[in-house]
């Protein structure tokens, strides 16, 4: 295997480079769509048995958990049970080196009776955050997904209510497996508007039918009236012929009414078909394996102007954006805030484990209030520590979110700015992801180590020595 690949990997790199050139030349650019909260997957992708929608960052988080579970099972199976020294293989050795190195590193910082607990938390957080961060480097993540019109809710001051509007920008269409292209030909109709149009077509058809029936009834009545006034014959013949007339006229008026009804519905069907013929979608475009998927026909697309006149028809076109199936989990505040909360709560747990209930005198230190002239300062310092622990949650979560979200935007922008050579920025993101994961986990370990130390007792000890 190895000898086969020797010296041949460069051709893979060359092939990828040529593919990059081809895509940069062939595929028109789209404006990347940037949204801070995780995007909801479309209607129908709920968490089972609930109404809660799945976000694409949740998908990434689940993938990270599954990967970690796989690693855990793999390492547990490959570990030599007899403590043998024989290295069981490259991938396993990588983990062994990682654990050994970090164990030494953390041992230097937080070695002590609580080392195992601190190291477990450190390594868990490190691996989760590291895998989440490095997912931004995987091709297809953040770029391949559903195609949907870009709408947002906007407050309308005139009517005092929120309404869904479409935003300015480019339109893109669905290509092979969700890869997007610019397409400038459709006015978007939302699924609700489409249903309303169907509804009103039915109403219009019923109205046309009723009008046709009314017309026919009036005509029939007029004909009977004419017949009654024209013919001055005897009652028997008049009655008989009138009934015959009435029967034939009922038949024709039903035909006319049905024809009017069908005409209106046929016009509506033709309108819908015309939209489909231009590759225009309603709502969310179907994926290739779903019903209603229609492959894109490039010959039907038109160029779109860079700066359309706002009053023109072009400006009404809707930007179609990619809603990625998977978006990096650490670009969502929910993920980072959760890990930060777990970390800070575990810091308190380690503190209580090490110092007992006396750990909380760190926050509420009233013991010196009446003994020492500076007792009030101790109380204030304790309260500051309490606020500081809440600030830790904020700083943990926003540091990771900011670094990874900015990195995701950087990769977006650079992929469009230098479509052929965005590699240096991927290398940068590789290091940023690793360093942010290490910083997150290391800070947790350091705070845990600090929580196990009782400053209170040290002070009294120092006092005793001084006296």
């Amino acid at each position, binding site marked *: 295997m190895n000898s086969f690949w020797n010296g041949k990997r460069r051709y893979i790199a060359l092939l990828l480079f040529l593919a990059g050139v081809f895509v940069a030349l062939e595929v028109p650019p789209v404006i990347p769509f940037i949204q*801070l909260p995780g995007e909801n997957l479309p209607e129908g992708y709920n968490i089972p048995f609930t109404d809660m929608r799945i976000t694409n960052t949740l998908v990434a988080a689940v993938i990270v958990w599954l990967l970690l579970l796989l690693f855990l099972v793999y390492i547990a199976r490959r570990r030599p049970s007899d403590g043998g020294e024989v290295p069981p293989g490259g991938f396993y050795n990588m983990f062994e080196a990682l654990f050994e190195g970090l164990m030494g590193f953390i041992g230097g910082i937080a070695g002590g009776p609580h080392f195992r607990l601190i190291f477990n938390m450190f390594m868990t957080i490190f691996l989760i955050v590291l895998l989440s961060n490095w997912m931004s480097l995987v091709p297809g993540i953040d770029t391949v997904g559903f195609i949907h019109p870009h709408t947002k809710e906007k407050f309308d001051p005139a009517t005092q209510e929120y309404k869904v509007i479409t935003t300015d920008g480019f339109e893109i269409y669905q290509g092979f497996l969700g890869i997007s292209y610019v397409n400038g030909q459709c006015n978007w109709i939302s699924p609700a508007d489409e249903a309303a149009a169907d509804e009103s077509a039915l109403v219009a058809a019923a109205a046309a039918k009723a009008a046709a029936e009314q017309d026919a009834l009036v005509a029939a009545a007029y004909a009977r009236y004419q017949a009654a006034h024209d013919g001055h014959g005897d009652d028997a013949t008049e009655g008989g012929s009138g009934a015959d007339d009435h029967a034939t006229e009922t038949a024709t008026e039903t035909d006319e009414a049905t024809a009017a009804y069908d005409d209106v519905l046929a016009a509506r069907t033709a309108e819908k078909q015309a939209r489909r013929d231009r590759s225009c979608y309603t709502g969310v475009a179907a994926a290739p394996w779903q019903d209603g998927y229609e492959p894109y026909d490039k010959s039907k697309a038109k160029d779109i102007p860079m700066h359309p006149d706002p009053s023109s028809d072009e400006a009404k076109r809707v930007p179609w954006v990619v809603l990625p199936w998977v978006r990096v989990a650490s670009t969502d505040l929910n993920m980072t805030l959760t890990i930060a909360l777990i970390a800070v709560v575990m810091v308190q747990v380690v503190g209580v484990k090490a110092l007992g209930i006396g750990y909380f005198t760190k926050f509420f230190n009233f013991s010196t209030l009446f003994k020492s002239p500076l007792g009030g300062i101790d109380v204030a310092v304790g309260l500051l520590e309490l606020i500081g622990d809440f600030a830790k949650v904020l*700083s943990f979560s926003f540091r990771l979110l900011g670094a990874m979200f900015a990195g995701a935007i950087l990769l977006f922008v650079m992929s469009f700015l230098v479509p052929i050579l965005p590699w240096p920025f991927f290398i940068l993101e590789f290091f940023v992801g690793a360093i942010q994961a290490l910083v997150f986990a290391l800070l947790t370990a350091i705070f845990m180590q600090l929580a196990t130390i009782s400053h209170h007792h040290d002070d009294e000890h120092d006092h005793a020595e001084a006296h």
Partner: protein
Amino acid sequence: MDPQATIVLGKAIGAGLAMIGAAGGGIGIGLSVGGAVQAMGRNPDHTPTIQTNMILGVAFAEAVAIYALVVSLIILFVLN
């Protein structure tokens, strides 16, 4: 003035002002890397230790700039 244009103007100015905070991070990174390079020059044997601590310090200093970045990102992409 068009209210929409006013909103865009305010968002752009606010996001730009928020990024002034990144200057502090830059100064901090410069100071810590400068100190680390001096230390590495004086005793090259301790380069790995110094480098590790330098990268950690740089990451902490960078965090301040990242907070500013988060504020400006929120102004740009979350505020309506």
